[in-house]
């Protein structure tokens, strides 16, 4: 909302210090998004009469103009063509600095010296027209040498661009802003007068009629007839204020309506009386399918349900004496009844419509106007009379013969009772933390139009009609509290840090996630953030054929689905880096993977719909950890080494690697993209729960995401949610084991084992046989080839033994060695 300072100052003697006003408006919640100085640089611009126009030899775009600017004739070179000899145009003489900082200097063009510049409206910052010069010939007093600012009645001004919040309908007007500022500065607000419009002597009730068929959605429809209208241009002051406020001046009638709306916040609409079927206006609901061609020339269909607020078909319309639609109430008038050059009599509509009704129609039609913006926020239901009076005051400035049929005629509707808030000052203090007595509260709220009465310890606060945002009891207490603290000044508030006995902290699962991040970063991995919204084809590339969770309104087709696996995003990140010659990367991400409720193992359900009355199934959300390893020679073995580190860090003693992978018991999105013969499931030995995967990404999947063929990518996936929920991460505190003071003994054992038997089986057998004295079993060599049968390989393990209380004897170690060999034979291993 743009507001010129001069307009504000017409209500009260506000200071002109822009920085001070900006700070004050900000503190009142009327955020200044910007301010602009206008009229600066126009001081030197004068009226100039064109004496002669001559061509310049060799130039076809510019001409030599001689003007009289009140002194000696001046020669100006000019590129505009929209004027003739005898016209008066604005001249910026040498030395002038135009708005925007353009300095006028003497220039020579095609051998002709130019002593200034003839200007367009755009160049002067007084309009948008840049098609030619601003021709001033028709304006009274446009004599050569007269200052342009004097002629146009322009003063240097500052335009504030304000943003008023949704709960400040009163602030959507110059008067509303002036009232807020005046309250803060303890200034009186007075309405500047434009004179009085002449009364015709007939009441509108004798010359026209008004009807309100929807009293619940229109609290009043005020109609006033006027005669003696002459349609023309607005006075410069009115036109300039509208232009500075961002509205294009159109004609004196439309401008008066817009002026009143900007000034007071009450939209009005003037109908050409002779174009109406009978001198009558009414408000009713549109019949289904009824149409109207609005002022903007577009045919609008009304009364139909549409995607808007609540799918209601209802639209409020304004009708004439024939019950024909002539306007969309509160949004836009019809083209057929608009004010035109020959209009001599009009009917003015000033009404108050239900905010939701206007919001609904405006959204449904995709049609927003300055009027609908205001009605959506809530218009003061008692403003119509004052707005009507102001409208005719302004119109009378340009229509000396204007007569108004007074009083106006109002078709009343249902009016909500005045909101009354009853609370003690202590109640406000309990919300605000600042003790203000009843008197202070009265002083703060009074200037805003609140009536504060004392009733014992209670305050009875009557809310002004321009604050429909303030709710009734008991919710309204908070609304009034905001008004109290707003006028008191947020900046004046004390700051107190509250204390409570409960300690802060992270939950178990948050600590686990932090721990995971720390371990992975410590292992040299980089954390990435990949998109939640992905193309549906991502899942197809992973051969995930489960239903996906999809958006009803995606921004782009490649962002239609919620990811069911983090892997595509991470492969895309690898690809992105490889394309920038950064092939080697080890990434991890901890993020949410979504499973459609139809196939979720643990679907969620939550309250939904109006009032939370229905239950809706929601996607399962699991936190996944995914690691992709593509550094130098990385493959499944690197992933295994990483797994060892994680296994140790998280104390996942229960976990074992299971190969080959039987996918039937595992959520598909956990397994997505794995290499079938180079991956293993991570399974709890005790509960049988599968909560992850370690191995490699399948080659066709790498190819699908553009990761260079032939390279391997190590993969590790953990369902962190499952890991937490199934209690696999031990919660007990670690108990320290004392370090033995006695030397340890190592034995190395090499076996051959059938290729089809996992080495893990042999290791388990060795661990079991080696018993409590064994501190580690480490595979240190694998050999295949010469000297071995084709279906067997050699596995060499190193076992370390030690006791807490003694040095182990050779006999003891020998016995353990024999036990290990015997156990190994049980799984088909043969000592070499």
């Amino acid at each position, binding site marked *: 909302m743009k507001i010129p300072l001069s307009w504000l100052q017409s209500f009260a003697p506000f200071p002109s210090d822009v920085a001070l006003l900006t700070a004050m408006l900000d503190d009142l919640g009327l955020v200044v998004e910007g301010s602009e100085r206008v009229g600066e640089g126009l001081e030197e611009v004068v009226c100039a009469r064109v004496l002669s126009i001559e061509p310049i030899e060799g130039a076809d775009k510019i001409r030599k103009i001689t003007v009289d600017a009140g002194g000696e004739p001046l020669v100006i070179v000019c590129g505009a063509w929209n004027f003739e000899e005898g016209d008066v145009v604005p001249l910026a003489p040498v030395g002038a600095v135009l708005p925007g900082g353009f300095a006028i200097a003497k220039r020579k063009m095609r051998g002709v010296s130019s002593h200034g510049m003839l200007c367009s409206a755009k160049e002067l910052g007084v309009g948008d027209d840049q098609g030619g010069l601003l021709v001033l010939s028709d304006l009274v007093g446009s004599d050569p040498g007269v200052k342009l600012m004097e002629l146009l009645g322009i003063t240097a001004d500052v335009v504030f661009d304000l943003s008023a919040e*949704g709960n*400040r309908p009163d602030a959507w007007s110059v008067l509303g802003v002036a009232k807020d500022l005046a309250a803060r500065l303890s200034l009186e607000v007075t309405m500047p007068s434009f004179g009085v419009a002449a009364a015709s002597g007939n009441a509108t009730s004798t010359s026209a009629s008004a009807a309100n068929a929807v009293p619940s959605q229109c609290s009043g429809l005020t109609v006033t007839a006027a005669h003696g209208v002459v349609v023309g241009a607005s006075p410069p002051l009115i036109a300039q204020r509208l232009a500075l406020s961002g509205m294009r001046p159109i004609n004196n009638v439309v401008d008066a309506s817009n002026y009143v709306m900007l000034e007071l916040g009450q939209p009005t609409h003037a109908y050409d009386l002779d174009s109406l079927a009978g001198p009558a206006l009414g408000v009713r609901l549109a019949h289904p399918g009824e149409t109207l061609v609005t002022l903007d020339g577009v045919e609008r269909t009304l009364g139909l349900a549409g995607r808007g607020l609540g799918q209601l078909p209802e639209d409020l319309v304004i009708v004439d004496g024939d019950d024909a639609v002539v306007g969309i109430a509160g949004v836009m008038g019809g083209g057929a009844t608009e004010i035109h050059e020959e209009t001599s009599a009009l009917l003015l509509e000033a009404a108050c419509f239900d905010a*939701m009704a206007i919001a*609904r129609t405006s959204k449904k039609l995709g049609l927003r106007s300055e009027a609908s913006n205001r009605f959506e926020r809530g218009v003061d239901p008692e403003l119509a009379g004052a707005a009507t009076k102001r409208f005719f005051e302004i119109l009378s400035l340009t229509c000396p013969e204007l007569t108004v049929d007074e009083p106006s005629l109002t078709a009343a509707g249902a009016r909500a009772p005045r909101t009354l808030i009853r609370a003690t000052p202590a109640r406000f203090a309990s919300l605000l*933390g600042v003790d203000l007595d009843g008197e202070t509260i009265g002083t703060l709220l009074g200037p805003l139009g609140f009536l504060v009465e004392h009733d014992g310890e209670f305050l009875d606060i009557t809310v002004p009609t321009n604050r429909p945002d303030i709710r009734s009891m008991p919710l309204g207490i908070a609304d009034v509290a905001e008004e109290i603290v707003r006028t008191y000044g947020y900046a004046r508030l004390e700051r107190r840090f509250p204390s409570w006995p409960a300690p*802060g902290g992270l939950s178990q699962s948050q600590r686990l996630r932090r721990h995971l991040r720390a371990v992975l970063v410590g292992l040299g991995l980089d954390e990435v*953030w990949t998109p939640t919204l992905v193309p549906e084809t991502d899942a197809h590339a992973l051969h995930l054929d489960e239903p996906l969770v999809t958006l009803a309104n995606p921004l782009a087709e490649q962002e239609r689905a919620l990811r069911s696996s983090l892997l595509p995003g991470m492969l895309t990140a690898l690809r992105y*880096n490889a394309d920038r010659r950064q092939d080697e*990367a080890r990434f991890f991400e901890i993020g949410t993977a979504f499973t459609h409720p139809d196939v979720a193992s643990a679907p969620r359900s939550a309250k*939904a719909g109006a009032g939370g009355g229905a239950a809706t199934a929601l996607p399962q959300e699991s936190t996944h950890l995914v690691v992709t390893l593509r550094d130098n020679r990385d493959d499944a073995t690197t992933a295994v080494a990483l797994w060892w580190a994680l296994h140790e860090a998280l104390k996942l003693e229960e976990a074992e690697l299971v190969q080959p992978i039987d996918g039937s018991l595992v959520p598909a999105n956990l397994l997505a993209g794995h290499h079938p013969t180079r991956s293993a499931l991570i399974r709890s030995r005790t509960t049988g729960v599968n909560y992850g995967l370690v191995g490699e990404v399948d080659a066709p999947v790498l190819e699908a995401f553009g990761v260079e063929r032939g390279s391997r990518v190590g993969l590790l996936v953990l369902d962190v949610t499952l890991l937490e929920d199934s209690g696999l991460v031990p919660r007990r505190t670690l108990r320290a084991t004392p370090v033995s003071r006695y030397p340890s003994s190592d034995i190395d054992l090499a076996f051959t084992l059938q290729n089809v038997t996992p080495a893990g089986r042999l290791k388990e057998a060795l661990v079991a046989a080696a018993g409590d004295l064994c501190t580690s079993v480490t595979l240190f060599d694998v050999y295949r080839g010469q000297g071995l049968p084709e279906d067997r390989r050699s596995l060499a393990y190193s076992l370390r033994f030690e006791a807490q209380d003694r040095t182990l004897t050779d006999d003891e170690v020998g016995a353990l060695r024999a036990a290990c060999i015997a156990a190994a034979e049980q799984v088909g291993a043969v000592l070499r």
Partner: protein
Amino acid sequence: MGEVIGSVDIDHLVLAAATAAQGATSRTVLEAVEAEFLGKRSELAGAHRSLGSMDEQARKSAGAVLNAARVQIQQAIEECRVGVEAAERSALLEADRLDLTEVVSSSIASPVRRGHQHVISQTQAELEDVFIGMGFTVADGPEVETDWFNFEALNIPPAHPARGMWDTFYLELGEPETVVLRTHTSPVQIHLMEDAVANDTLPIHAVMPGRCFRRDTPDARHLHTFHQIEGLVIDRGMTFVDLAGVIQTFTTAYFGADISSRLRPAFFPFTEPSAEYEITCTICHGEGCRTCSQTGWIELGGCGMVDPAVLHAVGIDPEEYSGFAFGFGIDRCAQMRHQIADMRALVENDLRFVEQF
């Protein structure tokens, strides 16, 4: 003996082709079979060429026979192709097979290099730590929510223009526009309050970090996916002055002692009174610069006293308990602190960016 066209026994040919295809053990062999029986120099092609010398009637019938044979041979080859490809893939996988329990640790070459936590998760942890120090617990919540939790319980009723304050991604689940990607972390507040009421565990002092989504076209300053942290305190005797104190304490704790905070009136449906929360510009330290539009202040987030309508919705008595909430962007904090010019860098995952943190 089948029909013979141009000295080619068609039935025999089809049979021979099928047999050859079935015998193929690789795609290469199968391609050779295809060339032999369907290629330019195949018997079938020869038979085709012989059609030219026939009369029209004979040409028509012989042509039909040849085409049928071609289709049969193609089908036979296609059928085998699926099998051959599967067998090839299976052989490839078999050759690739690795026993993951057979990995020898000394064989893994691993460069010595520091890893890097993502700047956003680092920022989130730092923010959490500041709030933990101030006595807050940390709560999580789902990213997919219903309209009840994301809107209505937060005093944003259905069919209300206030819903337009958030550009919402709706999911194709349930009734239209009832399931959403959360537009803020505020629904976690509702979960916390409902749970506390159900389990009789009030008061609440918690912060809620998490990923949120708004249907805005991404640009250098905004992504449609972003991270937010919100705080909620519901306790006896909590006031606007306590809120201002919490905001100020957090501001100096996180941004530094020379950075201050201020509140100015604002509107949010779920708080009343509400405030916009601004801090001293971290670039110019209040002197005024381009970043803060010469004001010396930059907007960080919103806050306010929890609206009584929200307390009603979750069953908390506003006469007994009061509370406040605040929220701001984690990404924005990171952006300000590290002067990240283009937010899109956060999701590109370029190593040259990732490695800086």
